[in-house]
């Protein structure tokens, strides 16, 4: 598990793969701003092999975790979900994924299903882009 400063540096190094990770964007935010935002939302970021995964609990529903990954592989997300189930008593998960992101494969591989689309939700590369809302209940997820 990385502290906010180390997490911000790791996400900055991941550059394009980290765009939209828990709502942050290394292209438009420097390390200090990313660290401040991770702290503000109470996010935790972990390294899992070559991937970064992260989560933040929603204050109004602490059993539901907002999760993110930089990788297309399902294994890092599965490991994160197991940790959240065992140690945080999470019962459901939400992922907000930029349209076209390679991480969609990781979430679908862990049992997430697309629940909706936030139209024109973020600006990147000269245009407004959709953000896909992925959801899974604990019972739907794969176990690592």
């Amino acid at each position, binding site marked *: 598990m990385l502290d906010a400063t180390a997490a911000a540096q790791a996400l900055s190094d991941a550059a394009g793969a980290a765009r939209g990770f828990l709502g942050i964007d290394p292209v438009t935010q*420097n390390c200090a*701003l990313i660290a401040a935002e991770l702290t503000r939302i109470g996010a935790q970021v972990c390294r899992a092999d070559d991937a970064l995964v992260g989560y933040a609990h929603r204050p109004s529903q602490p059993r539901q975790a907002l999760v993110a990954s930089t990788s297309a592989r399902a294994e890092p997300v599965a490991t994160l979900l197991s940790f959240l189930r065992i140690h945080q008593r999470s019962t459901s998960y939400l992922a907000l994924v930029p349209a076209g992101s390679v991480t969609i494969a990781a979430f679908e591989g862990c049992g997430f299903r697309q629940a909706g689309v936030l139209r024109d939700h973020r*600006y990147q590369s000269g245009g407004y882009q959709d953000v896909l809302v992925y959801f899974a209940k604990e019972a739907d997820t794969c176990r690592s």
Partner: protein
Amino acid sequence: MQVMTVRHFTEADIPARIKHMRDPSFQANLSDFATSITDESLAARQRRTIAQEQHTARIFTICGPGGEVAGFAWINPIDWYSQCCELSAGVLPPYRGGLGALAVAALYEYLLSELNIRVVVSQVLDHNQMMQSAELMAACRQVTCPLDSYTAGEWRAAHFWAFTEADARSYLGAEPAGRQALADRIRARIEEDQGP
């Protein structure tokens, strides 16, 4: 591939930027504050901008063809609601001229495409031809303010102009072949200078 690129300014870049700000040939383009305070005060201001002022001011490092530091740019103030900012930039001597123009193009592209800025206001003091010729400045300028700044012992007029989304469509979007040709010529010149 872009010849000149832009990245976030970091604490590791501060000594190089202080040296640049105190370069007599460049300093005349700025207000005199960089020559009137200590290194530590100047560094502290930049650390504060990095850590605490990103919503109102940002500094960027301009990188050359090999990723090396080629200059610095800053936007201040930033009006996020109006999607407007004022841009200042300076490049190190080897990058003035054509590479400086490509650096400005990279900055415009970043500001409009990633930060969603719609209007970039530039201000250049009358004597400053480090990044554009007198002819180009005469074509660009929309407002001239006499006696705008007193720097390095002289009163200077300042020229202002706005770069808008419409300008971007013609400058950045409609002439990619022209920009690529310029980039190719500069790359060839660099390789020629570096030798076999």
